[in-house]
């Protein structure tokens, strides 16, 4: 795996006995002790993820806001300094380039946090659409490490390392604060369906913070978590994963992300026309959740049928460790997308009964 990129924490993962795989060109830990055990650790206590492979693209300049608004489907007016906004980015035809988080440092300084597999593609896309706006676009991914601390005990653990009152960071807000003597950008965001934080910091400080968190958090049940459990956690929480629920062939409206596509305000953005047309004409396909009624695990790409006729396919599927069921997300004809509808998933040439259920499959209890 010598040709793979490594995060600053690679040696820590190897030493911890992680199973390492190629993910988006990075040598990443897929599991440490086991996906199910790690999954449950995050649901019940807290887990620490190395997600330094994620891309960070810095947009700076007088026209930064204007430029970003042209790219994203969500309305940038919803944010202000120290706020985070989730948004898809679309092609002219409404297909999805990527989904990302916008961090607003100030009106002339933003970070776009993108999927690792899309970093280069996004950079090309952004540069291609840079016209007369006064902005600079810089890929700062290599300088920045990203740790995700997630789970019901995440705040207690992080609070041990800072005098800053973490209650002041509400969901989708961030602050630049001192964590164990290191300057960090901390947002209350995540990809697990649990409360938690994402911690951005200089790459050369990543090992120190990783080790300090694991040591201080040990008594709270904190453990390192691999990308395998990250996927089952996001899946249960109904969160889309680019390349599965979103792709150049899938619009955010089809993926059920209409809330993040702002067609009400006057802002123009790339793909708006196509998405308006799709909404006016009726969205042809919809993302749904499925629960298997018979034995079998739905997997990505398996066809979904109704009365023997193909109506779509599975985009993600997995056993659900929290719910103890075999669940799938599927993209199917809108006319069949009703909750309770019984369909069949084709597993190794056999039609296996499933039922459409609502997503997210899992929602944390409010405190």
């Amino acid at each position: 795996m010598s040709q793979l990129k490594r995060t600053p924490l690679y040696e820590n993962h190897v030493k911890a006995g992680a199973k390492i795989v190629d993910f988006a060109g990075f040598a990443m830990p897929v599991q440490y002790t086991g996906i199910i055990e790690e999954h449950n650790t995050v649901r019940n206590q807290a887990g620490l993820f190395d997600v330094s492979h994620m891309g960070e693209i810095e947009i700076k300049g007088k026209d930064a806001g204007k430029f970003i608004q042209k790219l994203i489907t969500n309305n940038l007016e919803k944010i202000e300094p120290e706020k985070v906004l989730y948004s898809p980015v679309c092609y002219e035809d409404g297909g999805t380039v990527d989904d990302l988080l916008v961090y607003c440092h100030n009106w002339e300084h933003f970070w776009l946090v993108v999927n690792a597999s899309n970093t280069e593609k996004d950079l090309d896309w952004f540069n291609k659409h840079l016209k007369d706006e006064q902005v600079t676009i810089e890929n700062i991914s290599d300088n920045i490490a990203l740790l995700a601390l997630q789970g019901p005990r995440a705040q207690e653990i992080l609070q041990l390392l800072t005098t800053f009152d973490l209650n002041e960071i509400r969901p989708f807000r961030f602050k630049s604060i001192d964590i164990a003597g290191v300057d960090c950008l901390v947002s209350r965001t995540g990809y697990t369906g649990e409360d938690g934080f994402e911690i951005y910091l200089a790459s050369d400080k990543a090992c120190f913070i990783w080790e300090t968190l694991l040591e201080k958090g040990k008594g709270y049940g904190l453990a390192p978590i691999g990308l395998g459990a990250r996927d089952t956690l996001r899946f249960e929480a109904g969160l889309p994963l680019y390349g599965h629920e979103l792709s150049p062939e899938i619009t955010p409206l089809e993926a059920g992300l209409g809330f993040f596509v702002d067609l009400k305000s006057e802002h123009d953005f790339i793909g708006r026309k196509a998405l308006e047309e799709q909404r006016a004409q009726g969205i042809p396909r919809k993302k749904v959740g499925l629960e298997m009624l018979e034995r079998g695990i739905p997997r990505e790409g398996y066809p979904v049928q109704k009365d023997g006729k193909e109506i779509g396919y599975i985009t993600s599927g997995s056993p659900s460790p929290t719910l103890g069921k075999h669940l799938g997300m599927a993209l199917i004809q809108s006319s069949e997308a009703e909750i309770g509808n019984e369909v069949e998933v084709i597993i190794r040439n056999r039609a296996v009964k499933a039922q459409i259920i609502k997503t997210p499959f899992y929602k944390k209890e409010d405190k």
Partner: protein
Amino acid sequence: MYPNNLKYSKEHEWVDLESKKIGITHYAQESLGDVVFVELPEVGAEFEVGDSLGVVESVKAVSDVYSPVSGKVTAVNEALLDNPELINQDPYGEGWIVEMEITGGEEDLLSAEEYERLIKEE
């Protein structure tokens, strides 16, 4: 990890030529991770060497179980339907998958030593 009394296939199955039981190896279960689902053949089904006789699924992976020998299934381990994790916990014991009346193919199986050499190369 690889008992000497068993024979092994290149596809990571083991065969006990005395009890006629077949399962997947320690290496296979470890590579798969937590096994969460098993699909078993019908008793009486016949397989040639290399045919898929069943499926083992982990959280992330779907893996065929290839018949290491030719023969007819005489029993299946139904305990795996409710407790697929037996394959992880005890791959050569409680985690056996099928029992077969073997009609051929034993000659191409590997010894424990040969199999260990094979997986070192993987």
